[in-house]
C-alpha cells in the first residue's frame, strides 16, 4: 500500500493535505468541520491581536473562469479565539497551525506567543494578505521587512514558524530572507490581488473593490514559484494555490512541496481530500514508488 504519510515541522502527518488558511478556522466548531472533511492538519483563519469584523458583503464571489475572488477583511476573533480552537484540535487528535496576521512586527510577535502558549503545533505568518491595507501585501513584497518580522517572531518562539508569501517580483528573494531569519518553512503562495467588475452595473463587485484571486487560474503561477524557491533553497515548502484534484497536488509535490493546502477546491468539492488521496495512491503505484516522500521535488532531477 502506497504510503502518503509525510513529516513536516516535526509532525508526522497522515497525509499531505491541509486546509488553506481562510477556509473556516475562526472558531472551535469550524475545527470539527475541517477534521470531519479529512484534513491532516488544521490551519486557522488569520488571527490578529484584536477581533476584526471584516468587510460587509459581498466578500466572496465565484468567477466564470473557475477562480474565486475574496476580500473577507481578516474577520477573526482576535487572540482570545486561539486557545479554544487549539484545544478542540487536540481533542480531535489533529495538529493545528495558527495563521498570524499583524499591522507591524510587534503584533505578529504577540499573536505568535499566544499561539505557542495555547499549544499550537506551529504558526504561519500571513505576510501577504492582498486585501487589507497594512496587513501583509506591501510587507511580503519587501524582503527586508519579511526578514525583520520573521526574525522577531522566531527569536521568541520555540514552535516552528512558517512564512506565507504571495506572488510578487520579489517572492524568491523574500523566501530566502524568511529562511535566513529562521523560518522553518514557507507556504507558497497566497491569493493574488485582483478585481472583478460587473459589466452591467459597471461596478466592482466586492465591497472592498480589491480582493485576492484563488483557484485554478493561479495554479501555474504557484507551481512556478514553488519550483523556483525549491531549486534555490531546497527548503520545506507547503504548496498552495488552485489545487482542485490529485493531479494538482502531485504537481506541487514534484515542484518541491512536502505538503499542500486546499482552499477554493474545498468550496467546490467537500469530498476533495478523499478524492486527492485516492488519486495520489494510484499515482504512487503507477510510478512504482513506496512513499510520497520520494517524489518531493522530483521534477528537479537532472
Amino acid at each position, binding site marked *: 500500500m502506497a504510503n502518503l504519510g509525510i513529516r513536516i515541522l516535526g509532525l508526522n502527518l497522515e497525509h499531505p493535505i491541509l486546509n488553506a488558511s*481562510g*477556509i*473556516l*478556522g*475562526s*472558531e472551535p*466548531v*469550524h475545527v*470539527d*468541520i475541517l477534521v*470531519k472533511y479529512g484534513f491532516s492538519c488544521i490551519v486557522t483563519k488569520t488571527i490578529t491581536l484584536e477581533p476584526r469584523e*471584516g468587510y*460587509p*458583503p*459581498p*466578500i*466572496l*464571489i*465565484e*468567477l*466564470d473562469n473557475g477562480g*474565486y475572488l*475574496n476580500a*473577507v477583511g481578516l*474577520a477573526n476573533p482576535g487572540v482570545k479565539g486561539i486557545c479554544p480552537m487549539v484545544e478542540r484540535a487536540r481533542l480531535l487528535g489533529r495538529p493545528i497551525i495558527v495563521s498570524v496576521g499583524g499591522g507591524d512586527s510587534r503584533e505578529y510577535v504577540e499573536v505568535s506567543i499566544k499561539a505557542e502558549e495555547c499549544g499550537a503545533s506551529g504558526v504561519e505568518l500571513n505576510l501577504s494578505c492582498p486585501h487589507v491595507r497594512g496587513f501583509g501585501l506591501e510587507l511580503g513584497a519587501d524582503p527586508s521587512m519579511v526578514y525583520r518580522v520573521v526574525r522577531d517572531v522566531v527569536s521568541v518562539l520555540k514552535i516552528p514558524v512558517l512564512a506565507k508569501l504571495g506572488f510578487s517580483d520579489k517572492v524568491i528573494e523574500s523566501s530566502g530572507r524568511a529562511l535566513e531569519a529562521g523560518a522553518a518553512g514557507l507556504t507558497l503562495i497566497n491569493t493574488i490581488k485582483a478585481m*472583478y467588475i*460587473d*459589466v*452591467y*452595473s459597471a*461596478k466592482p*463587485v466586492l*465591497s472592498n473593490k480589491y480582493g485576492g484571486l484563488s483557484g485554478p487560474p493561479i495554479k501555474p503561477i504557484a507551481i512556478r514559484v514553488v519550483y523556483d524557491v525549491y531549486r534555490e533553497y531546497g527548503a520545506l515548502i507547503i504548496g498552495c494555490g488552485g489545487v482542485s484534484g490529485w493531479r494538482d497536488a502531485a504537481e506541487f509535490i514534484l515542484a518541491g512541496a512536502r505538503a499542500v493546502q486546499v*482552499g477554493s477546491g*474545498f*468550496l467546490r468539492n*467537500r469530498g476533495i481530500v478523499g478524492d486527492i488521496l485516492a488519486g495520489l495512491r494510484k499515482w504512487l503505484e503507477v510510478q512504482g514508488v513506496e512513499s510520497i516522500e520520494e517524489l518531493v521535488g522530483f521534477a528537479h532531477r537532472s
Partner: protein
Amino acid sequence: MLIPALKISVEKLSSSYYRALFKLLEPPRIEPKPLQFINIWIPGLDEVPMSISDYTAGDYTLSIIFKVVGDGTRGLRDRNGFFGVKGFLGNGIVTSGYDRVLFVAGGSGIAPLPFLSRKCVENGCIVDVVWGVRRGDMLFNIGKYAVGLGEVYYATEDCTIGYCGKASSLVRRIVERSGFKWSLVISVGPNQMLREVCYTFRSLQNSYVSLETMVKCGLGACGSCLLKPLPKLLCLDGPVFKCSEVYHILG
C-alpha cells in the same frame, strides 16, 4: 457565479411585504430547487440572502418576497436597473414522491411558497398552507402567486383575520381536529414556531424546517452561518434540515 439580473418590477403586497421580479440576463447553470436561496447583490451597497420565491425556467425570471429591514432591502425596493444574483445556494428540497404537503409559514417565511407549490403541482402533489403573522394587515393573498394550493389557513396574533393566535397553535388545532394527512411537512419562520411545529409532528418521518441565520459569503468559506453547536453550515448543509437534526437548537 454572479448572474446579472435586471429588475422588472416591485410591488407592495401588504403593510410589511414587497415582491420584486428580476430577469436573469444569463442562464443559470442549473435550475433551483424549492427552498434554495440566493445572495442578491445591490451594486455598491450590500449583498443579502433571499429565499427564492418563484422562478420560471423558460424566461429566467426570478422573484423574491421581502420585508424592508435595512439599507440592502431598501435598495431592493427602491433601486432600479441591474443587480447580481449569486446562487442557487443551499440544499433545497425535492417534492417528488409526496401526495400532500403541509407548508407552515411564520411572517416572511411565506416567501418560498410560490416556487414550492409550482414544483409540487409538476410532481402531482397538493400543498396545504398555514400562515401566521403578527398583524392582519401584514397578510396578502398568497393564492395569487402560488398555484394548486389545497386548504389555506391564516393566523393573526392581533386576532383580526382567521385564527386568533400563532401559526404553530393553529397547526396543533388542525391536527387535533382532523389528524395527520400529510406525507411531508415543511416549516419556515421564527425558531420558536419551528420548534413547536416539529414537536407536533414528532412522529412524522418527513418533517422539515428551513432555518435562517446570518449568511456572509454563502459558499462555505467564512463560516458565519455556523449553526452552533452543530458542525453544520446553513449555506451548504441547509437551509433545510430534518426536524430531528436540529430540534435541540431551535428556540
